[in-house]
């Protein structure tokens, strides 16, 4: 077996061990893994890191390699362990020579068309009530939007903050649907 193949095999084994350490239920473990990764990325981005996804994955890899050693002895919130490893990874990143940041390129016309197409498909999948909420929540004019949201909240018999929460949850579902659509 070549060293590269051995490394990949070990990584897959480490990853499976990591998931098992997070939770014995693979589905719950997968959800926890996604959430921890998302939080690491958010924290790294907030710290001004230009490659937060890369550092988050590096952090997870390091934890996965250590799980075999700590799984029997570690006590407490496992997510905090990730945060500690991430601090080390980030510290190393800061010590490295700063890499030039890639210039952002605006989405091409084709990409925008794809996004619009996926958005239309995902909007159609929403329930009529959910669609009504999100359509009315996104008004064009800011002043009109505020008044409109108050009116919608009044019509639905909820507070403005509750309406916002509902709309954002629908928006989150839409984003998951759009991402899935774009990947297909």
């Amino acid at each position: 077996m070549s060293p590269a193949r051995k490394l990949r095999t070990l990584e897959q084994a480490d990853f499976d061990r990591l998931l098992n350490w997070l939770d014995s239920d693979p589905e719950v473990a997968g959800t926890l893994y996604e959430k921890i990764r998302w939080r690491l990325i958010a924290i790294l981005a907030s710290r001004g890191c230009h490659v937060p996804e890369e550092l988050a994955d590096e952090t997870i890899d390091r934890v996965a390699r250590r799980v075999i050693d700590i799984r029997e002895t570690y006590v407490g919130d496992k997510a905090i362990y990730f945060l500690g490893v991430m601090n080390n990874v980030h510290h190393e990143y800061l010590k490295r020579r700063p890499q030039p940041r890639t210039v952002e390129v605006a989405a091409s016309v084709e990409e925008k068309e794809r996004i619009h197409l996926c958005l239309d498909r995902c909007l159609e999948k929403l329930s009529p009530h959910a669609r009504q909420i999100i359509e009315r929540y996104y008004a064009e004019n800011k002043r009109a939007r505020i008044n409109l949201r108050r009116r919608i909240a009044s019509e639905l018999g909820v507070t403005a903050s509750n309406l916002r929460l509902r709309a954002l949850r629908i928006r989150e579902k839409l984003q998951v649907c759009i991402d899935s659509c774009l990947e297909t």
Partner: protein
Amino acid sequence: MTTSQNSDLKPTDEVIRGFLLGCLNAADQEEFEGQLISDERLHERVRHAEFQLADEFAGEQIGRIDRHRFLKNFLVTTERKRIVAASEALRQSLSLAIDARAIPPASWRHLFDFRKSAWRYAFGALVLLFLIGSFWLVTKERKIITYVIPKRIFRRPAATVTPQETHHPPNTAPPEHRESAASPPGHEALVSPGDSAQKPVVVLSLTAGGDVSQASSMSLPAADVVRFQLAFEGDRLRPLRIELNNLEGQSVFFAEAPAIEKNYGRIDFDVPANRFKSGSYQIRVSEADNAEQEVARYYFRVP
């Protein structure tokens, strides 16, 4: 790294926004990170704040400084770029939809705005329908065409002797008459215009002999029957009476011409040649039911 779970930092919306834009101070940043990494509810709030921030950016409702922070510290992940792209798409399509619904039509004129595509298609379909209908009528309903465009009636061709009109000024040589082989006389009767073959013809026009002093001299053909062709003006819509007399008043020929629909411009009649002697003659055409109503008068002289 250790974080305090019982910190005093309240993760308000402003703190969350500051975290996402990377503008918290070091202490708050560290404290917030500790809360976020293990707080499920805060995770959801930060997630929602991401969408809200992306919506504000897409709607250009974010200040200049925050915009700079947004580009530097927020828009650094693939997922967030997708969120912003979706926010832009959502804002565009839903705002248009809301605008279209929120603004009622100004008046019924909005409905009849002929610049709309629907009207253009409707007119196009109407023109197409008209063309198809016209084609169908032409190909399937020929009766209608013949009704609209009357059928042209062609007269039956007949061989006739070319008439020679006696337009001769006074004191000139007598007109020449074409003569052909004479046929036996039948009876005194008007003849149809096409029945002049093989008979000598004398053509008299109204203007040629309107006055007895201007009567043309003509030599009758050596035939048993002489055919006269009276050219006249106007329609022949009523029956006519034709009298051929000598100047002494003796009747040489008499006939009635029935009214006909078409104006042939002439009346033909045959007269036995032996009834003519040397002298002047008059042909008087009047209405059949009213002899006083003269239609035309012709004079000619037989040498």
